[in-house]
């Protein structure tokens, strides 16, 4: 590259709008959920093996680290679900403007906070 003109396409130096954060979190939560599937399948497998294994799963799930892990999985799922619903709503042509996109992003965050709080209550 001999071209010396200033170029700023370095995303790290650009201040991102809220819609960008909501989008990248949807991506991150989706990738994280792929890993979570292994944990969930493991729990399902043991919970259906025998009454003893079922009790072991229940005991395991009542430990603090497992509760935190389950809460994290639920949080990732709830976020991904809500941002996914936003996608479906926008696919139907609703909220496709700049303003609409921002409103949608804020709604996703607000409902996520509510959902994750409820999930916390449920886990504990």
């Amino acid at each position, binding site marked *: 590259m001999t071209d010396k003109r200033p170029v700023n396409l370095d995303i790290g130096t650009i201040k991102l709008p809220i819609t960008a954060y909501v989008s990248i979190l949807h*991506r991150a939560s*989706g*990738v994280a*959920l*792929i890993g979570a*599937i*292994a944990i969930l*399948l493991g729990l*399902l*497998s043991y*919970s*259906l093996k*025998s*009454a003893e294994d*079922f*009790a072991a799963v229940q005991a395991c799930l009542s430990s603090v680290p497992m509760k935190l892990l389950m809460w994290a999985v639920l949080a990732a*799922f709830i976020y991904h*679900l809500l941002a*996914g*619903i936003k*996608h*479906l709503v926008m*696919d139907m042509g609703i909220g496709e403007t700049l303003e609409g996109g921002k409103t949608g992003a804020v709604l996703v965050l607000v409902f996520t906070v509510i959902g994750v709080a409820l999930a916390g209550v*449920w886990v504990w």
Partner: protein
Amino acid sequence: MVKTVTSFGRSGLSDWLIQRVSGVVIAAYFFFIVGWLVTHESLDYSTWQTLHHMTCMKIFNTVTLLSVVAHAWIGIWAVLTDYITVRLLGPKATALRLVFEISVIGVLVIYALWGLAIVWGV
């Protein structure tokens, strides 16, 4: 229209649609299972086992499992084709992306087979 050999439906439009339909299936399963668990406090093994022994539940489990696998593949494919590119990583990127893609396919095939064994082994 995007057509590539490694995308799920080999067409961007069909991938787009499968991503939406599978998302809705997984969402429906989530609401069902959370609703069921919330209404069955102090759950015991036989109630849980009876639920998963029903044929309709086995079908629901299977459809959801396959939806997760398809959804995860389409999703991770989009992520890998965005970041592991020749533009970002240089000429080795295509080979590297294939390695990642094959690894993910391996994991997802294990999920599918393991999940089917659990669901139909009840």
